[in-house]
């Protein structure tokens, strides 16, 4: 059992648990940060998508021992604080387009969407249908068309 210190949503946290426990469980079961959802545990459904140092990752596939003191983990709960205003523009777009149905996949969808827009921005171009096709997050409620619309709209506001 080791002590693991890292930042979650702007605050430094320390968890005492075996190194190989995946970060998703350190967040959900030990720290009580339950925005990131479980949908597969093997990095395919993307329901757990969060950010590490501003980039999307899947904590179900990262041992807590690999996260260090310098690492900043942002979950859906901390996303709004990374932007001006009450909500992140992506969250606002999700509300404007009434994207969520059951909502279970949506924390992961939003975190993945923010990352996609960031990467497209870095290439200094507008988001395309092909870019949207690369999103791997499952939505079993089938909210995909609204997700596409919301991302297109938010990408101009981020």
């Amino acid at each position: 059992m080791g002590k693991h210190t890292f930042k979650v949503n702007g605050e430094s946290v320390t968890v005492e648990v075996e190194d190989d426990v995946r970060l998703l469980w350190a967040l959900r079961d030990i720290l009580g940060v339950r925005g990131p959802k479980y949908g597969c545990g093997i990095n395919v459904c993307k329901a757990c998508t969060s950010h590490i140092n501003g980039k999307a990752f899947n904590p179900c596939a990262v041992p807590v021992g690999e996260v260090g003191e310098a690492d900043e983990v942002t979950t859906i709960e901390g996303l709004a604080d990374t932007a001006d205003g009450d909500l992140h523009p992506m969250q606002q777009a999700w509300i404007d387009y009434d994207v969520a149905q059951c909502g279970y996949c949506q924390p992961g969808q939003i975190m993945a969407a923010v990352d996609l827009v960031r990467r497209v921005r870095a290439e200094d171009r507008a988001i395309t249908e092909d870019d949207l096709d690369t999103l791997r997050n499952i939505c079993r409620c089938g909210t995909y068309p609204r997700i596409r619309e919301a991302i297109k709209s938010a990408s101009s506001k981020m």
Partner: protein
Amino acid sequence: MTEDNRGGEPGRREVGRRRLLGYLVAAPTLAVAVRLGVDMTAPSEAQAAGTPVPTPPLPADLFDLEDTQNYAAKPTAHLITLELREDGSVHFELPRMEVGQGIMTSTAMIIADELDVPLDQVVVTLAKARPELQMNQLTGGSNTTMSTYYPIRTAAALARGALLEAAALMLGGLKPNSLKTENGAVIAPDGTRVSYGELAGKAAVSQTTAKEAELKSAAERKVVGTPVGRTDARDAVTGAKQFAMDLDIPGALPTMVCKPPTINGTVRSVRNAAAVRAMPGVAHVAVIATGVAVRARTFGQCIDAVRALDVDWAPGLVGHDSDDDVLAELKDAELPLAVPEIPALATTVDTSFTFMFSSNAALETGCTVADVTADSAEVWGGFKAPIVAKQEIASTLGLPADAVTVNVVQGGGSFGRKLFQDGGLDAALASQAFGAPVRLMWHRADDCRQGRVHPMSTSRVRATVLGDQVLSYEQRHTSARTDFGHGYGEMISAAASQLPVGDYSISQWVYTLTQAAHYNFGPTTSLLNELTDRRFNTGAMRNIYSPNTAVARELTVDKIAATMGKDPYEFRRTFVREERSRAVLDKVAEVGRWGRDMPPHHAQGIGIHNEYHAYTACLMEIDTSPATVNRKVRQAVTGPRVTKVVFAVDIGLAVNPKGLEAQMMGGIMDALAIVLTSSVHLKDGNFLEASWDNYAYTRQWNVPFDVEVIVMPSTSEDPGGAGELGVAAAASAAANAYARATGTTPTVFPINHNSGLHFEPYPYSPPIPQSPTNGLDYVR
């Protein structure tokens, strides 16, 4: 789309104000109650026939599953209560389950409208299991709004009346009908405002009394019929929305069950329980009826423990069967097609289709929190049939039913899965075995392989055609057993005496009550034969039989049209039985520009479906060009892509057009999966699929670029059912588009089922895969 959906527009028949009975309930603040199930809509009338050979109505045309559910509600229904608090908030416990279909939002809208209170002051929660409601607490059959619309409005109207009376008294003996209500307050003629909160105590009664309520007329509606976003939208996007596994129940530690390597296998013995108990974080290991339960500090440690268990398993009942074995059983069971005598010159159109097993798993797996003690049990989970859950959990634990509390938590999707309480039973058993509270979650692999499947089925159709007439239409659907053990049974037997047909099994009732005659094709029959053996874990998937029967029907309709040399749209226009069908059909043809020029390998397809007192039509455009079909996406199915969808829906009264659009869109995504990409493969006694990289549900790379849902202007004062409504018409449009683009009518669905796996199946032992450790390698 806004004004269109409000009742009372010029030219439509004004329905007089309805007066319904409710109760003022003795309570410290205003509380009103009504029975569920009062004053439901009458069964629809059979439509007069046009020129084509008229088809007499099938049972579902006269008295469908909705009527059955509504009828079943009547004699057994008990009271549902609306309560006003001193802060002006209105509270209502909905005896239904929210799984994303938007009923908490639409219920709040109905209350807000009838009571004249702002939407954000209406607090809708989900009721615990209430056995006194009997079959009136089942969320299925897309029935929620239909069965609760009038009861909830009655309660709200009664409350409004009581508030007017209390305010009249308070304002010095004014006449109640000189006052009006607006935005959560009563307004006097001189403009004085008295807020509902101030009146909450004054309007209370000390003795429960029956009272008649007068409902608003359609013209007075302000909220119902307008597009409203989900009331939990903010919680959903901030991570605040809680599902079962997000609840903090003291002492409830993560728990998983090591499931058998064969379907429904059982534990003979565990060889290393002590060693597993000594693993890091592990607190408990115990054999339960469905496997070996482990309880640990984290789910990660549960996964490790499940994988480390060395169990001697007894096999289940499936043996070494594969898809073909089940298909052979279905072929043996197919009912004969018996065409009435036809003229010598008539031609026969014969079709036959196979629909493979598919998975109704939601994104949230089987999840329940349970706290079982020696003499009581409490569970928290997404139960669509909580009364059945309560009974089953009690009998499994050996407790009296009233010692079991079932809390209903919003679910992360359902699609039929949450009608059953498989995870709930596991949780209760594990908590009992451990003597400790558990937060039990199924692993995704178990949700796929041990969870429920929509049964494999075949559908055969025979139609006879003479000149410009269709003389007869027969459909014979044959299915592996569908488990309806969640309570449709009691509901249907409650209503059976009202039904116009003979002595059927539950499955046959459901089938008969959901399959309407869509066309004037002369004598029409649609019959089900269902296998009876129980070796698979099955259940209905969203829209039950209809996505399959509709695909078979609508593909056959295209073939009949071709036999006559007619255009598929024009043909349908001529032969549809109901005006409302024709209207949605015309709408999609017009908006979707039916018949426009399409490039090679591209085509349009069209289909219709009526169910749940509603009418739908769909037009799709598909791209089957090699460049599209052969796209490569890792661990995924690409194939043909539907590029554009136009869908029209006439649901009578659309309570929330925005929510309705979302439901249709979800149904369209399901339809694409059923037709083009997703099934489970049975091989050598097991299902191969174990996760979302195997089960190819619709993904972004399969999604049409353009999806337009048109909500037709209100055609009725009564709402139809929405939750499952979108699937069937969309699936048939996709199938027809594919057939027209490729020139070949597919006979097996999904079309890719027999074209090789896109994945290497995960092992069966250990039963669940380990989580990878290379997640950071993918950070870009």
